[in-house]
């Protein structure tokens, strides 16, 4: 098999990219859960350490990651429903594109105001409150 040069990327469509996004968000959520289990377990070791770790989370970067996490969980769960519909609903495979766009629409609809509310505090701290 020839190795170089690499071939081009397969130009898949909605179905392929929604699957790629499903994988990526799934892995992100796994890493979050991993970290989450570790830091929560810390409370049993030493509540003081736990509090100190929690304090390190109160930064704009972590806030941004939280927004990402909510988005990832939202996409992963909605697309999970789509995948179930494809497998169990007789007409699912025919409507997979429409369902992909519905998932994207809901994610955007929730995440645009959601990002605003979640970031409000951080933005006010960084740039000063408007009120």
């Amino acid at each position, binding site marked *: *098999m*020839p*190795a*170089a*040069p690499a*071939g*081009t*990327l*397969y*130009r*898949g*469509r*909605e*179905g*392929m990219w929604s*699957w790629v996004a499903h994988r990526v968000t799934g892995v992100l959520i796994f890493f979050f859960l991993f970290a989450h289990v570790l830091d929560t377990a810390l409370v049993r070791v030493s509540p003081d350490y736990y509090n100190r770790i929690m304090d390190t989370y109160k930064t704009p970067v972590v806030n941004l990651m939280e927004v990402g996490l909510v988005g990832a969980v939202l996409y992963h769960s909605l697309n999970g429903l789509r*995948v179930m519909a*494809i*497998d*169990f609903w007789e007409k*699912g*495979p*025919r409507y*997979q594109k429409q369902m992909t766009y519905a998932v994207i629409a809901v994610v955007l609809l929730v995440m645009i105001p959601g990002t605003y509310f979640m970031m409000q505090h951080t933005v006010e701290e960084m740039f000063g409150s408007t009120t």
Partner: protein
Amino acid sequence: MTALDDRPVSAADAAHVTTVTLKIRRYDPEVDPDANWQTFDVPVEKGDRLLDALHHVKWYQDGSLAFRRSCAHGVCGSDAMRINGVNRLACKVLIKDLATKEGQEILVEPIKGLPVEKDLIVDMEPFFEAFRSIKPFLITDGREPTRERLQSAEDRARFDDTTKCIMCAACTTSCPVYWTDESYFGPQAIVMAHRFIFDSRDEGAEERLEILNEKEGVWRCRTTFNCTDACPRGIEVTKAIQEVKRALIFRRV
């Protein structure tokens, strides 16, 4: 080996002959262990298909270009290749749909996931092996009937879609799961199994379902729909796979 096309062209003909550039992924292990991209400028007429352009390259520019084709009419399934990034039959796609913008290159690569032998030719054996493993033939018990095996129009309609397969491998080699796991049966084998599982005359459904229930069977499908998009026969491949999955879950054909 290079030969120039010096056939006379009439003025009227020349008027609607345009030039397109093919960028082909070449590979010849006897010359170079690596593949490389080679471009060819090809004169094409309005109604030409990609296969015509490949013929032009092979017949008049570089005879060493290797690709498979036979019927040239989308029937034999020989010339599936990756064209502008997606699996298509070279004999079915029109040049005018590929090079929509002036001077746009048309990318041609072998299908992915099967070992490349030379240029656009891949070793189809792993693909045929998966096909054979689902027992693609009528299975019946009991005595052979003296007259033909009758079937109602409704019963025939259940598997009509999957009878259209020409075994071009466009679906199987468009599947991201197949690229990374060649022991996966792949969409085509499932399509072929579907054709028999849902055939009221066949009695091997249980057997085939058991084969597809294995680790490398239908459960590897991640519903990316690349296969459905790629199938030149318009078979709803993912839907067929889903029907097999449901037959397994609900134990009903």
